[in-house]
């Protein structure tokens, strides 16, 4: 480590330990640390000291309702392999008022880990890494309607609930149309990003809004530029 590098490292060290660097500074610091692992122990030591701040607040008790809600979700997620598709589809039919869902959904194939991993390299670099949590991204499979043919998709939920959609074999749509992602919170669809039909297949698109637990993510065809509310039936859906 050169004197200049050492100086810069020391300059950022304490703010890094406290989580008080900008994203750019943090990336710079972590890159420097990766190149000089001999300083890792010192960093860990100071991060531990800064982490003591977490013990300082006055102790408060969360409500009993929080425990109940949490355990309900945990127990429900334990049965995640048996998704309750009917309620989801019923809700979607209410929301979109369309017939196609009633005809049932076609199971979609899982896009290989490798393919989306490569695709998302660029996307992932834009997201903040959190060294204290080695969280694997969640991968949720989309359910496509029959009219979507062989289309398939996955929703990758990264640390911090940032969502990335990966889809392949999407059906052709007309010129002047785009695919639009929707996040349905309760009964309200909110725009979650656009992706173009002419992108390379498979396509990866960052969502512009973070989906929350229980939200439904849907994809529809919309006029170029997107819509403020869905104007067509969803072609794919999944639920967090």
């Amino acid at each position, binding site marked *: 480590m050169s004197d200049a590098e050492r100086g810069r490292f020391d300059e950022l060290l304490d703010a890094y330990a406290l989580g008080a660097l900008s994203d750019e500074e943090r990336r710079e610091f972590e890159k420097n640390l990766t190149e000089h692992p001999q300083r890792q122990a010192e960093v860990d030591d100071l991060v531990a000291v800064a982490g003591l701040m*977490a013990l300082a607040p006055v102790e408060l008790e969360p409500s009993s309702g929080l425990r109940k809600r949490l355990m309900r979700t*945990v127990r429900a997620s334990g049965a995640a392999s048996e998704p309750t598709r009917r309620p989801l589809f019923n809700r979607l039919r209410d929301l979109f008022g369309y017939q196609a869902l009633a005809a049932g959904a076609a199971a979609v194939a899982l896009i290989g880990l490798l393919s989306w991993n490569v695709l998302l390299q660029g996307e992932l670099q834009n997201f903040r890494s959190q060294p204290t949590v080695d969280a694997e991204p969640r991968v949720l499979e989309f359910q496509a309607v029959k009219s979507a043919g062989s289309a398939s998709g996955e929703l990758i939920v990264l640390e*911090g609930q940032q969502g990335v959609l990966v889809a392949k074999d999407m059906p052709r749509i007309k010129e002047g149309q785009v695919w639009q992602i929707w996040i349905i919170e309760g009964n309200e669809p909110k725009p979650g990003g656009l992706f173009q039909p002419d992108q390379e297949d498979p396509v990866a698109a960052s969502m512009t809004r973070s989906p929350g637990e229980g939200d439904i993510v849907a994809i529809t065809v919309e006029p170029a530029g997107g819509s403020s509310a869905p104007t067509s039936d969803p072609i794919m859906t999944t639920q967090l």
Partner: protein
Amino acid sequence: MADEELISLAQAGSAEAFASLYDRHSRSAYSLAYRMMGEKQSAEDLVQEVFLKVWRNSASYRTERGSVRTWVLSIVHNRGVDQLRSTASRRRTQDRVEASAPTSQPSEAFTETWRNNQRDQVREALKTLPAEQLKILELAYFSGYTHVEIAGFLDLPLGTVKGRMRLGLRKVKDYFDTRDMAVPG
């Protein structure tokens, strides 16, 4: 049963083990979340999100990186900072106003009866800090401000903020070192 065993059981799908972890650490997690978010609903939402992350990502826990409590609290902190930074909320404006006002007396914050010995130690260590150092550590850690932001609204040179961060953290570390106490992990 040790936390590490509960984590392993939770990883294997035991909701009961997860419930035990929640019962052990929800109070600490909520206390930190409330300190950061400043109101009950946001704090509970944050705690719920964090414990769901613990449930889904229990495999990512590494014993060498500290205790389960430290791990849970670090997730609360990271997510809390993310949320604070993603919203230009009134609370942050309010913090700014408070930061420019005379600092509260740390002693007031330490008049509670502490039940947890580690908490006692940490609070004692923080009590030894001069108010201007403690304020900067709090703004950084609990309010999610960057050092540049803190310098801006405290109207201090960035070098001064960095210096106070450094002195504050070193003083806390020295507190434990001079008493031959390990930094609680």
